[in-house]
């Protein structure tokens, strides 16, 4: 492939607003450019999505002696998209004792990603 060959490496559908622009990620030699966005937020989204896609992880953890058998949890900050599966597998092994307060750190520094798994609500004893 010559230095100047141009190819669309990815098409990202922007989710910032309902317009849903198709943003093309174009590779020209070693240079990456974005086309098709119609606002600044769209460009920012596309860059994040291309270089380092992240998601907030929300799931549940088993609870011992709880008013309910599960507690809903979230990652305190977004997690790298390709680490979600590993994080889910680790969370699936956990069991927490009630009572729990919203915001309690239930799993600290999961997968050493500097992300904590925190409780989404209060949960009293059964």
């Amino acid at each position: 492939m010559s230095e100047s060959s141009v190819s669309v490496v990815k098409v990202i559908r922007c989710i910032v607003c309902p317009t849903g622009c198709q943003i093309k990620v174009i590779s020209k030699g070693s240079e990456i450019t974005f086309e098709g966005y119609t606002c600044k937020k769209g460009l920012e989204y596309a860059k994040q999505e291309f270089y380092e896609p992240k998601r907030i992880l929300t799931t549940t953890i088993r609870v011992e002696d709880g008013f309910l058998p599960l507690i809903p949890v979230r990652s305190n900050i977004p997690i790298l998209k390709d680490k979600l599966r590993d994080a889910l597998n680790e969370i699936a092994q956990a069991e927490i004792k009630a009572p729990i307060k919203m915001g309690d750190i239930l799993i600290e520094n999961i997968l050493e990603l500097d992300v904590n798994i925190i409780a989404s609500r209060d949960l009293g004893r059964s």
Partner: protein
Amino acid sequence: MKKYKADVVVIGAGAGGLAAAIEVKEADLSVLIIERDKELGGITLQCIHNGFGLKEFEEELTGPEYAQRFINKVIEKKIPYILDTMVIEITKDKKLYAVNKKEGLIEVEAKAIILAMGCREKTRGAINIPGFRPAGIYTAGQAQRFVNIEGYLPGNTYVILGSGDIGMIMARRLTWEGCTVKAVVEIQPYVSGLLRNQVQCLEDYGIPLITSYTVTRIHGRDRVKGVSIAKISKDYDRIIGSEKFIECDTLLLSVGLIPENELTLQAGAELSKNGGPVVDEELETTIEGIFACGNVLQVHDLVDMVTAEAKRAGKNAIEYINSRYGKELKKKELIKCVPGENVNYLKPDIINKQNLSEEIIFTFRVKYPDRRVLIQFKDQNNSIIYKKKKIYVIPSEMLELNINLEESGINQDCKSITIEVIPRPEVLIEED
């Protein structure tokens, strides 16, 4: 029979009911919340995903976090509530009868009532899918409750009918729990939920979205063995020969929500086409002193909008008690609000003429998607009262307009307003 008394009784302790109750309590009136579930919070408790609170708190919360903030406020303000209690009757003089396990039948006397019972999901019966009645058919919200609150997985391989937000969110949730979602099938040619969910719940996991198709048969006698899907024409006819079989053990239905208004009807209030009560610009139903807010009035896209509407209902109930309760006021002069071209429904259904000088919040949905439209308000003589351009409208996005009709130059003899969403005339397109 045990008796309770409060200035305002709120039926339902979901996002709407909690916000309305807090609003009333802050005005130093007494309030009582009645909830049929075993805890406060409502459906947001099972919506464990994020995306809530961006408007109300300007931060992104999960459903349970959103609910917890209101629950904490209810507790902090010592607002009384009764759980596990089902309201079974509302009378015109604002007495409520309810039942629970501990007290049996109870009577509650109120000056004003706020209806905040929410909505429920359409089931298989509403869409008539042929086949036997095997195990493995659930509504998406029912499955959500099993998975997120009760700790059961309803099956292993799924087909989801309907691309509403709950359906798409459940597709991701089940994938995360190790299940396989074979497809999300949508009868319309477009996705019916938010784009964000289409991208982050389906496309992220390679779950096929099959539009212009519907489930035409459920296979299996004891347990679902699969579903047949078929392509649907523009006139909603099944296209013969387009059938495909998808093997699955569970079918989830995400085919729409209906405001839950049996109590409202029984109380004698009028309902409108969307299934919610007829309300005026103060969210008062056709029964004086009974207000409605949240999904029992109209199904909202965002819980933040439910909260905003509930606060309005709370404020208006306070205003009613302070200025109109127990007084004989002359009959209101009303303007009817009518959905016109490409408007599915709109709220309010009626407007009191004496409030025309104030800003009125109109909420409505279109019937089909359209681009470069004009939203137009016309009176009974076709005189245009108000118009506004909009680039893009879709049924899944509730539209909201705050309009002062007097400043817009409404005619004093106006009897009805028709709201339409029409393609923009050529001239206007050039102006863009």
